[in-house]
């Protein structure tokens, strides 16, 4: 039993940072919410209804960004995002290039991802946030391997998303510089 | 001694010297091949059992012989590349691998074409043929390994290691296949005795073999020169050459 009685609501325009020491169950919680793990007991409501009632809608509205970057090393960043762009949303190649520029990958659009550094790979994954039109972003340690400048960009991205009426649920061991951020300490729910 | 060796590693020096060598080797190769081919195909007598079909040996035999020597050329180049990190040796190794695979394939194809009229079948598991097939696999393994690596520096070093492992193995493979065949020799098929070949058929064959060696050298150098030019395209001396052309 990692945690119990955790309960929270997230509204549009809200951002919640799940914190807690290593191994307190943040990743487990986020994966359960996204629908990747089966939680032992509990209830998730999306728009007041359990997700499985309209799974497609739920999936379209929620974007999960996990520990792993989900970037294919054999494809270029543009090729990588193309699949995402035609299943999760409906973005054009131009949108993809713009998204890559937005996360600071100017000039890396068409080289194989195997030649990117750790941080550049994570940035390709973050470009999905720019493309996506999901309402809720679930981000597991999005700042990993990102440099100082990149962190600013990402925070700006989060802020914009909130302003547009989106919601964010994230974990991070770093301080997040966003005014309205709330935090949930999992250590209190053992 | 070492200065000489390092000079050999310099692409520009290689380009100059190979240019001079080619001026001499290319005509010799052409001459030998033309003479050998005309003699062998037009003037040598027909075989009393196989008729004219035997004339394919003028390709088949030189190609078969070269395919094996080619492996050792490749492996030696690979070893030099591994030990002294010489860029040229790496290029030589890759060119030799590609040409070797081609030659081996050609040996198999010409052999099969010959086999059809001689044995009535495209393929038999004769010792030499089997060894040649294994040799083809060894070459293909090296090429596939090279292609599989994204990082081409590591790729050529990995290929060099594999080529060296192959060098230790090839004599063992040849010996064991020979031994295997002498045990299992099927009663239906026999290769002709080596000694039975008539001098009037043998001389053109010899010329063809020597000619093919020269041809191999020429092709290897041409291959390497192209690669060198591509690799060094940003240097002064290459741009000078391009401008002159």
């Amino acid at each position: 039993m990692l945690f119990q009685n955790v309960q929270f609501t997230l509204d549009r325009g809200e951002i919640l940072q799940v914190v807690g020491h290593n191994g307190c169950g943040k990743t487990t919680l986020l994966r359960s919410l996204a629908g990747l793990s089966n939680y032992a007991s509990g209830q998730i409501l999306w728009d007041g209804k359990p997700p499985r009632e309209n799974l497609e809608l739920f999936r379209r509205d929620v974007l999960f960004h996990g520990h792993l970057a989900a970037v294919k090393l054999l494809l270029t960043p543009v090729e990588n995002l193309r699949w995402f762009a035609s299943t999760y949303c409906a973005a054009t190649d131009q949108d993809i290039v713009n998204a890559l520029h937005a996360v600071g990958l100017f000039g890396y659009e068409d080289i194989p991802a195997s030649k990117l550094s750790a941080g550049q790979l994570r940035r390709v994954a973050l470009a999905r946030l720019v493309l996506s039109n999901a309402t809720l972003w679930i981000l597991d340690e999005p700042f990993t391997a990102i440099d100082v400048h990149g962190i600013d960009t990402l925070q700006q991205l989060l802020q914009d998303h909130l302003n547009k009426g989106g919601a964010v649920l994230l974990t991070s061991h770093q301080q997040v510089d966003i005014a309205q951020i709330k935090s949930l300490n999992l250590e209190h729910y053992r | 001694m070492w200065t000489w060796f390092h000079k050999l590693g310099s692409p520009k020096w290689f380009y100059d010297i190979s240019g001079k060598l080619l001026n001499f080797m290319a005509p010799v190769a052409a001459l030998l091949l033309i003479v050998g081919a005309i003699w062998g195909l037009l003037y040598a007598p027909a075989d009393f059992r196989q008729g004219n079909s035997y004339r394919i040996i003028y390709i088949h035999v030189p190609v078969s012989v070269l395919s094996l020597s080619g492996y050792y050329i490749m492996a030696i180049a690979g070893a030099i590349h591994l030990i002294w990190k010489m860029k040229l040796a790496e290029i030589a190794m890759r060119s030799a691998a590609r040409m070797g695979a081609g030659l081996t394939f050609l040996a198999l194809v010409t052999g099969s074409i010959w086999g059809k009229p001689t044995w009535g079948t495209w393929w038999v598991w004769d010792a030499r043929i089997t060894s040649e097939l294994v040799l083809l696999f060894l070459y293909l393994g090296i090429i596939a390994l090279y292609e599989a690596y994204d990082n081409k520096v590591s790729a050529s070093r990995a290929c060099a290691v594999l080529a060296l492992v192959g060098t230790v193995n090839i004599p063992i493979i040849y010996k064991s296949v020979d031994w295997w065949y002498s045990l299992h020799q099927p009663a239906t098929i026999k290769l002709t005795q080596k000694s039975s070949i008539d001098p009037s058929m043998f001389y053109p064959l010899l010329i063809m073999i020597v000619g093919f060696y020269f041809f191999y050298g020429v092709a290897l150098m041409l291959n390497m020169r192209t690669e060198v030019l591509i690799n060094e395209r940003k240097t002064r001396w290459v741009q000078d050459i391009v401008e002159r052309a």
Partner: protein
Amino acid sequence: MNASQNLSLLKGLSATLKRELTLLWRRKSDSLNPLLFLVVVCSLFPLGVSPEPKVLAMLAPGIIWVVALLACLLSTESMFRSDFDDGALELFLLNPQSLYFHSLVKVLAHWLLTGVPLALLSPIIALLLNLPVAGIPVLIMSLLIGTASLVFIGAIGSALTVGLRRGGVLLSLIVLPLYVPVLIFGADAVKRAAEGAAVPGQLAILLAFFMLSFALAPLAVAGALRISVDS
């Protein structure tokens, strides 16, 4: 509304197809290698068993089919591996479109670049192993249909084992028993054809296997992937 959804599903599926084909093509050696595997392993048999042409001709249908089966098995092993390792599988599973169709297309792409070339190359091995020429058209046909079933069935095993970080041998245990019927009918078709008989029955049965696995395997694959990701 519904039409536009279908349109976007089609777009998504073609994106999956394109992506998979690109990936397989980039790893050309991976999709070429089943072919080489077929040739190399088939040529081990004369060395191990006997070089006698008559013996080989008798064994050829069985050997070619068994080895083709192993080649399919080995190439399906890595079908979801890299997706699992780099997290792409999570993205795949969470995508808002139909997982059934996406899995179907993914497996299909795999077959296009392994099974089809395998079938087309098989005549060379037929020559090596001295299979009578009469058997060759049926060999190609049976492999073409048969490998499709093999790849679809193999995909289930691959999806079940991808989370286990184990070698391919566990996979072979799960999958090989399911391969048995395909092997029996495929090898039998070739054997009979080599003897000059007509074999519409065997080929029809192979086709039936294929249609069954085509329709059902993606369901199992989708379920298995969900389980693997949660482990």
